[in-house]
């Protein structure tokens, strides 16, 4: 990044003079001024290795008089240039004052032609059926720089295995691989999961996976994007379509609070009734959110949108008790009647994938019938209001964290809950940021931490409040950090415990003056894509708790799969007289509902989410409609219209206009504002595949970050930390696994990711296991609080601290404990 602090140096590229910040790589510098230096192995997000030799250029230096420092001139008055005797690899050189670069010359052209020829001698002529054909850097550069024909003998060509599964998700074609090592380096340098390696040497050099199971990482899909040839292909997209047949639609990932910008490649397809179908999802560059990366859950987790379980028609429960298909008009009328007759005893629980528009319309509908009871689902993470106050400052970019900065990750396993944040914290660590991980158990984040502090299960808030006493050296580093970002989750905490922790984090940030500035502040690791949107639009987990405790007459469930999440849901739901369900799926709540309204997933509609860093981002319609499903906001608006609350809006954009007018936080978030795009560095995407690989340029907008209260200069007061802990011999802590059996990810066992979802298990400490006579691999029965006991396999693997068992949520159909509770484990 060019900042005011960086020293600028004068460089001559192709006879024109430019200024660049010192230390910039020659390929990047040339790219900035639209001079192409072709590369295969170099990638702007990784360290140069100089392997492919494609970036050879002529480099020289302007000669200066050693004594006076004056530029020496030749006879015709031009500066004397001393050219280096050999061509140099541009990727391994940085700009320096007086450097002269020729990106094209006879020697350079010849060197490039030779390198391309060398690469092609071993590369198969698969282009007609290669998935990369049409968006392939090697193909493009062959056309641009390569020789027209081969001089080698075809029979001598090396034949290798073309169908090597590196893991469940990625295939390697050994013949197509040009040994650039981008994938190996991505895994080691960027993702921090060095599961790929080079094997053998010379022409036998091959990529292999060194993990079991193969390619065991959450980021494997990114390697297919940066692969400059078709060597790495995804199981998902393999032979799905040709690149030129597809349209790319800017969309968002709806699985976690990171809010990765993605691009859906769509095409008409027989498999989807001739409608537009998402054939693949790739990352879309947003340097402030996900750079150019995304995790495999987002990339491959789009199949649920076309699940067989999707609801297709509105349904109303007849007097006899069975659901019958109705027209939208009838279903809307039935819902309106139920709401109108409820006498104000109405409540809404909205799930984490409801968009800002859905939430706002729901809020208005509830207000129209005299209710302000708006619950956020799942009711596990509190403190979104505190994030709104002291959240990361406007303009925050985790990529700017480095030496002198610090990151605290507390009560969350970022690897499982928000993988791209994990990746970005890891790279911040590599740039020199001081990373502290605090949790009651070991997590994957420990691998990338400078300091790990453990606390007793459930005591996150007190542990953090006591940080200065318990770990003064760690606290010192955090306090004195130039910039400090705190990622706080709610693992092993009750809802009150979660609030206490968020308050403790807020207090610490306020006291140490790490609020109201860019790259400083609090990030809540909340579930789902729109937890911050829930907060800004008036939905809270505390309200959910109240709704559960005091059931209303009519409850609207908007994309909240409560029965699958909460073992107590069946009980409290039965106390509600009437349930109106807006759902994607034929789920349990639907089966208890009076009115069922099928709604559209993110794929079939447009809308906006507010991510964990409070960035409002919009997504566009990618996929053809399913059945009669409509966007949730539209269904709600129709009911409101029926109730006489005013005409339904025609588009999500209009709803957003209403939000902007009604809610001050959303000022400046009109769709046209959300769609604005600025130049990003590095300039990845578009047609220049050579530079960053196959990734999509951001044409859908970078989004707008909502200012925190501290950003706005409001004084933010400290709050009381009311710690809350559960007592018991054995405490069951629900944990989150990235790959799980939630309906919005893995709707059926037949789908792609099935093999990657773990079988239900519980992790138990060795001492506890010995006490209970449980061995690793035994089937055990776990009961926690009021929940139905579940039978799962016990893992005695050192992950759980003493007195705690870790029970991942959503690995089985039966709901397991939603929040921490005392429980028992017995062998069966």
């Amino acid at each position, binding site marked *: 990044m060019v900042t005011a602090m960086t020293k600028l140096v004068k460089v001559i590229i192709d006879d024109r003079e430019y200024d660049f910040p010192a230390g910039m790589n020659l390929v990047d510098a040339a790219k900035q001024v639209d001079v192409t230096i072709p590369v295969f192995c170099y990638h702007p997000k990784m360290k140069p290795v100089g392997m492919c030799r494609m970036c050879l250029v002529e480099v020289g230096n302007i000669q200066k008089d050693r004594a006076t420092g004056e530029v020496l001139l030749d006879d015709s008055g031009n500066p004397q240039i001393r050219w280096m005797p050999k061509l140099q690899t541009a990727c391994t050189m940085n700009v320096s004052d007086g450097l002269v670069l020729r990106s094209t010359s006879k020697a350079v052209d010849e060197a490039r032609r030779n390198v391309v020829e060398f690469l092609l001698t071993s590369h*198969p*002529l*698969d282009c*007609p*059926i*290669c998935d990369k054909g049409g968006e392939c850097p090697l193909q493009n550069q062959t056309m641009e720089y390569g020789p027209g024909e081969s001089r080698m003998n075809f029979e001598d060509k090396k*034949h290798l*295995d*073309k*169908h090597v599964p590196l893991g469940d998700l990625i295939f390697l*074609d050994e013949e197509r691989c040009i040994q650039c090592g981008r994938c190996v380096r991505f895994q080691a340098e960027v993702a921090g999961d060095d599961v790929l390696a080079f094997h053998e040497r010379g022409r036998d050099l091959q990529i292999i996976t060194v993990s079991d199971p193969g390619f065991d990482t959450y980021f494997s899909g990114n390697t297919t994007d940066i692969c400059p040839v078709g060597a790495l292909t995804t199981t998902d997209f*393999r*032979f*799905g*379509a*040709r690149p*030129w*047949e597809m349209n790319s639609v800017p969309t968002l990932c709806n699985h976690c609070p990171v809010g990765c910008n993605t691009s859906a490649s769509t095409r008409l*397809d*027989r*498999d989807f009734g001739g409608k537009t179908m998402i054939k693949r999802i790739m990352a879309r560059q947003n340097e402030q959110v996900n750079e150019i990366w995304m995790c495999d859950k987002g990339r491959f987790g789009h199949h649920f949108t076309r699940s067989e379980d999707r609801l297709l028609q509105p349904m109303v429960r007849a007097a006899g008790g069975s659901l019958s298909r109705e027209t939208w008009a009838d279903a809307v009328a039935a819902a309106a009647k139920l709401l109108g007759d409820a006498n104000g005893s109405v409540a809404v629980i909205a799930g984490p994938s409801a968009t800002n528009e859905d939430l706002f319309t729901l809020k208005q509908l509830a207000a129209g019938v005299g209710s302000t009871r708006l619950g956020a689902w799942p009711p596990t993470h509190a403190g979104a209001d505190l994030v709104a106050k002291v959240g990361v400052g406007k303009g925050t970019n985790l990529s700017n964290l480095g030496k002198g900065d610090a990151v605290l990750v507390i009560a969350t396993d970022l690897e499982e809950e928000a993988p791209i944040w994990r990746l970005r914290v890891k790279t911040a660590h590599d740039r020199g940021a001081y990373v502290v991980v605090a949790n009651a158990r070991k997590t994957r984040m420990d691998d990338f931490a400078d300091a790990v502090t453990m606390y007793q299960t459930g005591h996150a808030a007190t542990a953090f409040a006591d940080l200065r006493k318990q770990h003064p050296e760690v606290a010192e580093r955090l306090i004195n950090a130039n910039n400090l970002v705190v990622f706080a989750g709610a693992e092993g905490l009750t809802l009150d415990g979660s609030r206490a922790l968020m308050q403790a984090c807020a207090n610490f940030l306020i006291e140490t003056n790490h609020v109201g500035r860019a790259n400083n502040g609090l990030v809540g690791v909340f579930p789902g894509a729109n937890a911050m949107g829930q907060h800004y639009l008036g939905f809270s987990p505390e309200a959910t708790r109240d709704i559960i405790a005091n059931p209303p007459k009519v409850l609207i469930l908007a994309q909240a799969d409560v029965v699958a999440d909460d073992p107590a849901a069946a009980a409290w739901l039965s106390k509600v007289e009437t349930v109106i369900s807006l759902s994607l799926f034929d789920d349990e709540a639907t089966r208890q509902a009076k009115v069922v309204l099928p709604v559209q997933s993110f794929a079939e509609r447009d809308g906006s989410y507010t991510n964990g860093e409070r960035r409002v981002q919009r997504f566009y319609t990618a996929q053809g409609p399913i059945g009669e499903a409509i966007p949730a906001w539209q269904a709600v608006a129709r009911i409101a219209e029926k109730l006489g609350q005013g005409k339904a809006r025609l588009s999500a954009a209009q709803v957003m206009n209403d939000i902007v007018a009604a809610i001050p936080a959303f000022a400046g978030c009109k769709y046209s504002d959300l769609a604005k795009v600025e130049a990003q560095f590095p300039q990845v995407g578009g047609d220049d595949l050579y530079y960053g690989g196959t990734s999509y340029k951001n044409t859908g907008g970078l989004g707008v970050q909502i200012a925190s209260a501290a950003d706005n200069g409001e004084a933010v007061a400290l709050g009381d930390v009311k710690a809350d802990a559960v007592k018991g011999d054995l405490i069951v802590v629900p944990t989150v696994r990235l790959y799980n059996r939630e309906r919005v990810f893995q709707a059926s066992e037949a789908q792609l990711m099935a093999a990657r979802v773990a079988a239900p298990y519980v992790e138990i400490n060795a001492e506890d296991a010995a006490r209970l006579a449980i061995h690793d691999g035994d089937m055990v029965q776990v009961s926690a609080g009021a929940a139905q006991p579940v039978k799962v396999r016990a893992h005695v693997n050192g992950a759980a601290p003493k007195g705690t068992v870790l029970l991942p949520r959503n690995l089985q159909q039966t709901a397991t404990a939603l929040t921490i509770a005392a429980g028992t484990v017995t062998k069966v």
Partner: protein
Amino acid sequence: MNILRGFATTFKHLLEEPITVQYPEQMRPFRERYKGRHHLRRYENGLEKCIGCALCAAACPADAIWVEAAENTDEQRFSPGERYAKTYEINMLRCIFCGYCEDACPTQAIQLGHEHQLSFTDRQDAIFTKDMLIDPTAIGVAGTPQQVEPGVYTRSIPDMENPR
């Protein structure tokens, strides 16, 4: 005088053999390179030449071709390459018989034949599906899919001559 000359011409032609061909009872011979309706060719062993690359669809100026590919397995092998055309359709109402598809095909799978009597009473009938386009197998040769020995077909694109 002129009128006589006119009659002379008329009478001269009366004696000549007529050039009118009684189509469709009578057919004129075809030029070898006449471009009629398409055929999807097979290898001698019955496997399909088409590898589902969709380059014909990309080359088609009338957007008349629709291809969807799928992956071959040794248990269910359609073509000797890595993939085959799961769906292959040509909309004959759109087709302008330019032959670009034939030019684009890397395996010479699609070829324009000599049939030209294409008439339809329904737009739907104008869409020729893969079953209609593909050549029948020779007598005694298995059709597709075939079950084959593993390791025989390992190339993404088979060589142009008949595969084993």
